[in-house]
């Protein structure tokens, strides 16, 4: 009997050693440990033996059973591991194949530029407001202190709908509309479309965008104008840029100025972008003309204010190096795609 047990054990060991599949290990289990298995039949036959003999053999048979079970478990693990390894190997992919396209859309560069600018001014306490694109002569010119014979009113400069209604030539009418509606303190920013009778070429478009800004409160000074616009320039073009305010003339501001920034491409040394001057003109501004404030019902002794207007296309073109304004309105996807 003892010999039989040992034979069973060595047979089981040998067969398990050869097994490579889970199904084979199962076959082996059934063969030795199953209801009709070899070990089971030995255990069954023990009933005929003497109690002492039976006890001894029982112990040996149980040991053999345990040993086989342990071997089975071990083999199963090995076989499973092998199988997993094979499966993973078979699943190997070429990680250098291209990814599946998941394309985000891009905003138009005009939007990107407006957002960038409004964010800067919003952080200084400005609120965004808007006005109509089709505007009255009153808000576009009269309320902004433009003389009755100002050349900008000519049909060669301004698009007319009728004698009193035009396409706004600037975002400044939002100033007049806001002054009429609101009380100081006022800090507003008005981005939007403007229209002038310019034949399209690389630098002109009959439709373009401006951002108007206006601050009205007690004690607003021209120093505040410089401060706000200097900060804008540094945030927009880089902290190292310098600003230069030059006297200029606009009907709706007095004193008036134009602001240049030191060229952010060459750092002021002179290049193609700044046409060698080291400076780039970016905006017009000034202290709001008392006539404008008065038409808006503001007490000019108590309140002062400043206003500025920025050409969005110009800034976008400078910033991105776009050399033809017409590209903005062609909407070629290969153009838009670049402004992610």
């Amino acid at each position: 009997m003892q010999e039989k047990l040992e034979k069973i054990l060595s047979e089981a060991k040998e067969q398990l050693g050869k097994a490579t599949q889970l199904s084979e290990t199962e076959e082996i289990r059934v063969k030795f440990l199953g209801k009709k298995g070899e070990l089971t039949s030995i255990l069954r036959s023990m009933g005929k033996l003497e109690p002492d003999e039976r006890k001894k053999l029982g112990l040996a048979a149980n040991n053999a059973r345990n040993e086989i079970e342990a071997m089975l478990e071990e083999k199963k693990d090995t076989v499973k591991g092998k199988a997993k390894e094979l499966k993973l190997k078979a699943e190997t992919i070429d990680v250098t194949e291209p990814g599946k396209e998941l394309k985000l859309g891009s905003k138009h560069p005009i939007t990107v530029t407006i957002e960038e600018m409004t964010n800067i001014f919003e952080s200084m306490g400005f609120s965004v407001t808007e006005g109509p694109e089709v505007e009255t002569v009153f808000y576009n010119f009269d309320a902004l202190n433009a003389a009755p014979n100002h050349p900008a009113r000519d049909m060669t400069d301004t698009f007319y709908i009728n004698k009193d209604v035009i396409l706004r030539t600037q975002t400044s009418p939002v100033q007049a509309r806001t002054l009429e509606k609101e009380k100081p303190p006022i800090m507003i920013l008005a981005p939007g479309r403007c229209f002038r009778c310019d034949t399209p070429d690389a630098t002109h478009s009959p439709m373009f965008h401006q951002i108007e800004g206006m601050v009205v409160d007690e004690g607003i000074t021209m120093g505040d104008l410089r401060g706000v616009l200097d900060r804008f320039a540094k945030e927009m073009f880089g902290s190292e840029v310098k600003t230069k305010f030059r006297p200029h003339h606009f009907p709706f501001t007095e004193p008036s100025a134009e602001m240049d920034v030191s060229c952010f491409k060459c750092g002021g040394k002179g290049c193609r972008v700044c046409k060698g001057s080291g400076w780039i003109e970016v905006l017009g501004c000034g202290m709001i003309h008392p006539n404008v404030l008065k038409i808006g019902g503001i007490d000019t002794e108590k309140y002062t204010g400043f206003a500025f207007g920025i050409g969005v296309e110009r800034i976008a073109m400078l910033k991105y190096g776009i050399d033809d304004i017409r590209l903005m309105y062609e909407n070629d996807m290969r153009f838009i795609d670049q402004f992610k």
Partner: protein
Amino acid sequence: MLVSLEWIKDYTDINVNTTEFCDRMVMSGSNLETCTEFCSGIVGVVVGKIEKIEKHPEADKLVICQLNVGKDDLVQIVTGADNIFEGAIVPVALQNSRIPGPLHGAPKSEGGVKITKGKLRGVVSNGMLCSAGELGLDDKVVPIAHRDGIWIIEEEVKLGEDITTALGLNDSIIDFEITPNRPDCLSMIGMAREAAATFNTKLNYPKNDCKESDEKTQDYLEVEVKSDLCLRYSARVIKDVKIKQSPWWLQKRLIKAGMRPINNIVDITNFVMMEYGQPLHAFDIRGIEGNKIVVDVAKKGEKFTTLDEVERNLSENILMIYDAKKAVAIAGIMGGLDSGIMNDTTTVVIESATFNKDGIRKASKELAHRTEASGRYEKGIDPNLCEEAADRVCHLVELTESGTVLKGSVDVYPNKYVSAPVEVRVDRVNKVLGIEVERKFMTDVFESLEMKVSGDGNIMTVTPPTIRQDLIIEEDFIEEVARMYGYENLPTTLPKSNTVSGESEHRKLRNIAREALCSMGFNEIQTYSFVSPRGIDKINIDEDSWERAFVELINPLGDENSVMRTILTPNMMEVLSRNYSRKIGKVSAFEIGNTFIKNFIDPNGLPDENYSICLGMYGDDVDFFSLKGATKELLSLLGIEKLSFISEKEYGVYHPGRCARIVAHTKDEDVEIGIMGEIHPDVMENYGIGQRVYVCELMFETINEISDREIVFSQLPKYPSTSRDIALLVEENLEVAKIEETIREASTEILESLKMFDIYKGKQVADGKKSVAYSLTYRHKDKTLTDADVDKVHENILKALESKLNATLRDM
């Protein structure tokens, strides 16, 4: 305006280089356009005298010149010029010299031209004789006499002297942009006044005294002014005039200012106009019948031929200068053909007048003719300049020995222009600028600009000179202080205003839409607000549809941009078509923009301006449902959850079987918010697109009104759900929306969700039928559902489907 630095220095003692001059003038308010060196690039060109001219043995058109250039040996130069003669003084470009060019008949080359010795048809030539153009003068300013051929110098010059020194060609020409409020700066004295104030030095006026003869002007001329469009008319008379070339110093100034010298009388009037900014006109007295000048408006229908030989139609808006019988000039704009200065003119009337600026502007516009004089009058000229300027002309006439000046002038000046004093407060100036400067600084600024200041303490009563008609209110004077104080010296502060930044819901919602669409892969486009009215035809909109209620421009650039857009779809189609033609295989694009509808209530009022959102796409893997899915997700982000897409067969833009009106269901009502579909094949043809295109246009204003973006959290379910899948056999043309509606109606609140997962036609499905499969999820919020609970509702649903839609259950 072109300003010669040399000319400015005639009136001021400025001792700075060109760069510093420009920089400081810019900061005090004169905006710089360009700054160039006059005739720069001349090296080694000297004055020479042609001693001898011989024929070239080999070439008929060439001659051999021997030139005296102040040295012992003559220089031999071969030339083809035909205006030279023995004894002529000419510019000689010697061996290895440089000239700015361009060479006669050649294009301008950057960096100029080097002159070297060479042989012309076998004869040695040691240099070149130069024309004015070759020395860098612009063709439009070269005196007629020198225009063709070599520059013949008539001044006293030393042979062998460098030409730039001999003719005084070294100078900086600065082009300043003069803003419309400063017409006083359109003159050399005006710019010199700015320079004197900027550099804190004195302004020296030019001499205008004159000897005069005993004969009186009044005996030669009578003036009558009949229209108040003429503010002042003064005239002087010069007799014994000898028409000749002006001296070089005078010609040179005109050339630098961009004007061509003509003859002494015309040149002097132009010179004084450049000096003072006062336009002057010279008449030959032979053209003035009856020795009388009458200033009056023209009669309607009257015609007049100006000295450019154009016959012009006049009207009562146009002020004219008449003699006793006929018109002789259009006031302030242009003289007539018959009274101009001729070579044999002997007596000249110098007109120095001021006309109403708006009158000149109107007349010039009506005649569609602008001249140097009218441009100046339009901007406004101080009437007090007339006399000074006329006197200066007379002074120069005597100086150049051009004629005899008669005694006195005829001067009609009914209302002398004086400037009004303005009260300027010291503390107000400081308050507006954010600075603290003394009264003394401010009064010094005013006085340096020739203003008179009185008063004391905080009040400065300032009277500007009459040339400064732009100084009217306190702020105008604040600017004068600011620019002389230097904008660069103002403090840099931030407003202390207590405001909170924000934006409208409308704008916020547009930003959400933009972000959402970009994240779904759509590119943003921006198109013109003004469009061609034909775009609406191209997308097949009905004749009487609201999309044709255009706001029209009176003066468009062209038909292409002649009306305001009523919808965004035509522009979207243009953009898709452009991209398609550029072989871009797949496009998803959107625009968020204003549309405009005519104001029917008040035709003179503002039109309705409404925002729209337009989506457009094409590409191999794109269909109606790609766009529908994107639209639904967009609307959900915009706060609109409950939607219906209702089949629309009549709208010409879209494929009749592939178009839907989009309706939102709010608590109170159903609102149409847009339309979408596959573009109609006819429209595709109009745009030349050979691929199916899907477009959606949404009415943003309505969306904004009904948008509800409030987020209310709902508890996560505590009890399990049960799902039942069903496949229904229905009529092929039954809209699935009907099935869903029927299911919802027949169910109770335990139906949590309903999701279609398959539509099948073909094998195993009878002709004219389709199979639609749904997954129904049931859940009770307070308990675990039993099969019986679900069965009750589910059976009910199936019954309803069968009875209402004749839908039968199909084995799955």
